């Protein structure tokens, strides 16, 4: 019974695959060759300007065919997203809706034309400084509270959701939207996880016809991460700097397998709570004192510490956070506090797709002698100007680290 169902499912898939063919593929062999495309273009020109009677393809087909020929070698593209799902496309994606704002940053790094994005999450619209070009775009709400009518009404051909966070909410969105419009393609990407970052950029580059741009961006990215990794790898494990990291809630640290733990390791530190089985444990202040870290990293930018970042030029709040850490009872005896090695960093440069800027800062703070030449601020500026295509001067605006 199961086998029969499986067979049925397979044949349905095959039929679906056959139904969606590459446009203007004259002989229907699944590959659009240069002569086929040329014929289609000539037919269309003939029909439009010369009074030709040959049945010409509609101009949308022609545009799609040209894209497939240029970027996908004239064949249907099968890609695998971060959740492991494969999708086959015979036409480019022209109307993309993103619930995942991290992937929006990545698409920007790949030079995606903003008019191909038709819907964004409310967080994008709440941040006009970082996302000026998307302020008029349709508001899809958030992953937890999506606006389905808006999302379906803008007729996206692709909806991009997170792969590794809010899994059940994302699954609900997929189910509901595909019930409204079965033609939408769904993709799952994270765009904030170091482990899949480069692969995702490559996949998205291929998907959107931005292969070269993706390579150019990855050269920049791998240069930044590689510089750090090369030096850090040479530091023996026993000599690694013990670090206490605290997120925006007081004493909420990062345990085994968490994103912050991974970033401490990438920057060559040893997380003093790296063995804690809870991903984001709230730790006992005494445990921090007794483990006596060399460096303390405090992340701000959310919760009670919702300041700093791109739209805040005032450093006084960072100063207060720094002072408060030193003022915690008995913390003045912790090595990091005594030596003035407490650093505040904003989540915008460590929690998301620009995490590699943050790890560069961490590496420099962990090993100031080894990274004398490393300039995280310059990496940040280049990222903003060249890849995020933002007119933003870090010398004049924003607060990301303290002490700078």
């Amino acid at each position, binding site marked *: 019974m199961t086998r029969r169902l499986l067979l049925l499912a397979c044949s349905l898939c095959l039929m679906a695959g056959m139904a969606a063919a590459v446009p203007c593929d004259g002989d229907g062999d699944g590959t659009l060759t240069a002569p086929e495309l040329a014929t289609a273009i000539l037919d269309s020109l003939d029909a439009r300007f010369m009074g030709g009677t040959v049945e010409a393809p509609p101009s949308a087909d022609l545009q799609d065919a040209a894209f497939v020929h240029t970027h996908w070698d004239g064949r249907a593209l099968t890609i695998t997203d971060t959740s492991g799902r494969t999708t086959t496309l015979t036409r480019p994606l022209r109307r993309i809706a993103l619930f995942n704002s991290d992937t929006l940053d990545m698409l920007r790094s790949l030079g995606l034309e903003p008019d191909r994005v038709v819907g964004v999450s*409310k967080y994008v619209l709440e941040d006009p400084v970082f996302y000026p070009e998307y302020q008029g775009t349709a*508001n899809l*709400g958030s992953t*937890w*509270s*999506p*606006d*389905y*009518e*808006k999302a*379906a*009404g803008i*007729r996206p051909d692709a909806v991009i959701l997170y792969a590794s*966070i*809010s*899994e*059940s*909410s994302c*699954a*609900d969105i997929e*189910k*509901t939207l595909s*019930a*409204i*419009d079965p033609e939408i393609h769904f993709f799952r990407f994270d765009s904030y996880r170091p482990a899949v970052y480069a692969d995702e950029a490559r996949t998205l580059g291929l998907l959107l016809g931005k292969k070269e741009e993706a390579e150019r961006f990855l050269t920049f990215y791998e240069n930044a991460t590689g510089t750090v990794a090369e030096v850090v790898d040479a530091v023996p494990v026993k000599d690694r700097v013990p670090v206490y990291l605290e997120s925006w809630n007081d004493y909420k640290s990062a345990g085994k397998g*968490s994103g912050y733990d991974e970033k401490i390791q990438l920057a060559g530190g040893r997380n003093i709570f790296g063995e804690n089985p*809870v*991903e*984001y*444990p*709230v730790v006992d202040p005494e445990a921090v004192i007794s483990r006596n870290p060399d460096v303390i990293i405090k992340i701000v930018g*959310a919760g009670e510490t919702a300041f700093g970042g791109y739209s805040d030029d005032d450093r006084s709040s960072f100063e207060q956070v720094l002072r408060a850490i030193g003022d915690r009872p008995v913390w003045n005896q912790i090595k990091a506090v005594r030596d003035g090695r407490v650093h505040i960093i904003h989540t915008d440069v460590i929690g998301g797709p620009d995490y590699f800027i943050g790890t560069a800062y961490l590496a420099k703070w962990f090993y100031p002698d080894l990274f004398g030449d490393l300039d995280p601020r310059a990496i940040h500026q280049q990222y903003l100007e060249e890849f995020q295509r933002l007119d933003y001067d870090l010398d004049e605006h924003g607060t990301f680290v303290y002490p700078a």
Partner: protein
Amino acid sequence: MMTDTGRQEYARLTEKRALFITALIVILIALAGVAVTLGSADLSVADSYLAIFAGLFPDAVDLPDRMVESNAVGIIWGWRLHRVLFAVVAGFGLAIAGSVMQGVLRNPLASPFTLGIASAASCGASIAIILGAGVLSGSLLVIGNAFLFAMLAAAAIYGMARLRGMGSETMILAGIALMYLFSAVTSLLQYLGTAAKVQEVVFWMFGSLDKSSWPKLGIVTVVVAAVVPLLLWRAWDLNALAEGDETAASLGVPVERSMAGFMLAASLVTAVIICFTGTIGFIGLVAPHITRMVIGTDHRTLIPASGLVGAVLLLGADCLARTLIPGAIIPVGIMTAFLGIPFFLYLFMRRRDA
């Protein structure tokens, strides 16, 4: 003479009940008619109805291009219609479950919430969301856990009451104790979870009709449709139980068995609804009270009437939830409280004055 007055009084009451139920049905239909035209998609009232007909008779209706472009039929049929119907059925079911629980336990505070069933469902959902552990997998993970835990809580209350004797105080105390236990587990999970997962749990607990779909509506409708006639058939037992266990027993009602049966039916209806919606507060508590204030405590009419009040309340709350802030949907669980509680308090105060 006495009997005449009594008869007249009863006739008046019957008329009042009929009037109340008719009025509720009219309001409900009108509200549903309005509800399908509300939403963030750019569809006028006429567009919405045209899309409904276009879905029913695709060949007969000639849709304008702009409606084809904005996928009006998909939005109405794939999203709005089942949501509106879901609100009606879920409100109906929750209110009925509440009125049965209050009747059986003879306690105005009894509801799926005070009995721990809702917090058990939240706990099950949290385990699914934060730990990814559950009885079913994929998109049924959260739903399966919520349902299972809600039924477990009901069984536990029943079991404890069985051991200690089936008093209504016993059940309520057991329920409140369970509520605290399950809430503690949920809090612990939230404490350990990542910010994104905690956010997901919080949104689940708000209660929302966002997750409605045709198959889910089908399941809920089948369960409600199966349970309601049963309850109506046994409504006399509820009336007898409401007079006290001894009275009921002397009237020939098998007290323990009936209580257990009623509680099971009410728990099942509640569990099957809240496992899909999350915890929708107060409908089960408020709707029966409102109804009782207007038409009295005869369960033969109280049950269907409070069901209708519940449906009107939930659908009304959902309409407001979808329109109050354009483009954003306020979770309906929050809206029902905003809408239901002031109305409830108003009736409550007025009755005391009189």
